[in-house]
């Protein structure tokens, strides 16, 4: 029995997914021992947030076949919403330091970001993607890609026009002593940001696996005609998927506001990082995207630590090129049908 487990484990380690995950874990442990646990903390916080953006991107790609290049702008919408909700709350807290808002105010701001993202996503479907789909689905991937690029430019410039180009940031969400774990001090904001992302990713996974609506979304992604003939309302599922995907990006933007202030093009970095994740883990693979997010985060943190802060895009980009050349289906993509093959 135990021999079987060992054999299975070695077989798994030798697959592309197993190999890269094993290497990632070893690198993470080695770097943590060498430089200190803060590196691991950074990886986990960045990875958790990246997982939210990347699962949204995967959803758009896997269910709707839209290569979304405006996803970062929903991150921006999330951080902007959270900023405008939290600024009055923090002023109120300054005057009333004993109010319940000290604890729950940030949650209101982050929830606001989530709702803002969902609404923005629904509006984009109604005004942009829906009309294109009804007009023609010929050459859909290319057309929708161009549309998302245009949407991105529009949203960035709308932000600049209405709210200005300056940084809109906050000092922090939660005051209080940093938590100390194994000699590393983690600020409350970081710890809670990670917990929020972990809870949302878990809820999202359960939603997709067990609920009637989640299964309908998966059904649409696997066979849209099949979904239609069993009575799934495609238009409704598409609307829901887009607002869900955008809400995931927005909640990430909202809960990272203490680290990354909101400004017009703030979404570019999370967008590129999320695309690295999606290419690394295989298009349309949701669980793979979560694992991939932590791997890309690790790569970024290690690069900043050992190579230099200016290199954090160069190394992941080089890796993506290698993956596209040698394993275009992504490291977890072997047993999943490519979405764009349909």
């Amino acid at each position, binding site marked *: 029995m135990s021999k079987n487990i060992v054999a299975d484990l070695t077989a798994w380690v030798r697959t592309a997914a197993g190999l890269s995950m094993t290497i990632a874990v070893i690198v993470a442990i080695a770097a943590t021992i060498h430089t200190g646990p803060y590196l691991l903390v950074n990886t986990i916080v960045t990875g958790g947030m990246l997982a939210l953006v990347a699962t949204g991107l995967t959803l758009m790609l896997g269910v709707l076949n839209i290569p979304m290049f405006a996803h970062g702008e929903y991150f921006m919408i999330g951080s902007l919403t959270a900023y405008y909700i939290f600024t009055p709350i923090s002023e109120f807290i300054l005057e009333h330091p004993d109010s319940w808002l000290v604890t729950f105010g940030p949650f209101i701001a982050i929830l606001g970001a989530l709702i803002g993202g969902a609404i923005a996503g629904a509006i984009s479907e109604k005004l942009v993607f829906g009309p294109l789909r009804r007009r023609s689905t010929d050459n859909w991937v290319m057309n929708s890609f161009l549309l998302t690029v245009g949407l991105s430019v529009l949203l960035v410039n709308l932000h600049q026009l209405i709210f200005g180009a300056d940084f809109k940031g906050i000092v922090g969400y939660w005051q209080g002593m940093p938590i100390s774990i194994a000699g590393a001090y983690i600020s409350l904001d970081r710890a809670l940001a990670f917990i929020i992302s972990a809870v949302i990713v878990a809820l999202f996974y359960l939603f997709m696996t067990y609920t009637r609506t989640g299964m309908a979304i998966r*059904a649409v992604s696997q066979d849209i005609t099949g979904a239609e003939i*069993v009575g799934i309302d495609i238009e409704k599922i598409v609307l829901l998927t887009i607002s869900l995907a955008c809400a995931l990006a927005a909640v990430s933007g909202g809960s990272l506001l203490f680290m990354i202030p909101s400004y017009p093009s703030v979404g570019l970095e999370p967008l590129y990082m999320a695309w690295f994740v999606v290419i690394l883990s295989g298009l349309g693979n949701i669980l793979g995207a979560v694992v991939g997010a932590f791997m890309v985060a690790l790569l970024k943190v290690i690069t900043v630590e050992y190579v230099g802060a200016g290199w954090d895009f160069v190394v992941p980009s080089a890796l993506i090129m290698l993956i596209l050349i040698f394993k275009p289906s992504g490291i977890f993509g072997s047993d999943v049908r490519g979405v764009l093959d349909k």
Partner: protein
Amino acid sequence: MLLEVKNLNAGYGYLQILRDVSLQIDKGEYVGIVGPNGAGKSTTMKTIAGLISPMSGSVVFNGEDITGLSGSAVAKKGISFVSEEMNLFVNMTVQENLYMGAYTIKEKHLKNERLDFVFELFPRLAERKKQLAGTMSGGERKMLAIGRGMMSNPSLMLVDEPSFGLAPQLTTSVFASLEVLIKNGMTILVVEQNVTKTLAVTDRGYVLENGKVGLEGNSADLAEDSYVRKVFLGV
């Protein structure tokens, strides 16, 4: 009259396939549409199922006009379509596929009742309920597609090319399962290229040629018809 199709004209884009197709099906009937490749058999099915919107004509189901409704709306009215390509959810298990077939049923216990019924009908599916649909053989997939079509407790089943891509003995078993459904009181409209087989099992038949209904009548009479025998059976 369960289903009445009147003067249906339909096609893809500017290409018109069906020309004034009319057909009727009563409750409990087993009706076949036969005809050569490209006659418009599948197009007729897809138009009734709501996957293609007709250019003109009407489809009346249970006394209700369902012309031009979307596929999901037609499914909710109680018509279940088993397509030629089967359109299974390949990365879901057999059981998940069947549950998706009962998507229009909200009550959990009703879904489970349907599931038990389908498993009783196709014990093979019960054995493989944890297997991914994409890893099953052609005959098993066909059974799964028919089983999924049964899950919504439809009043009419449209079955497109049940023998498509199957070995002869599998074809026989798929037809046998349709026979069982008919005995249970189901109404079935089946489209087939296998003319002999279809006319042997169905009550009534329509012969479709170049998008038009050429002949219609009792299947036994059609099988004896000299034109059908000459063109389709080669005797």
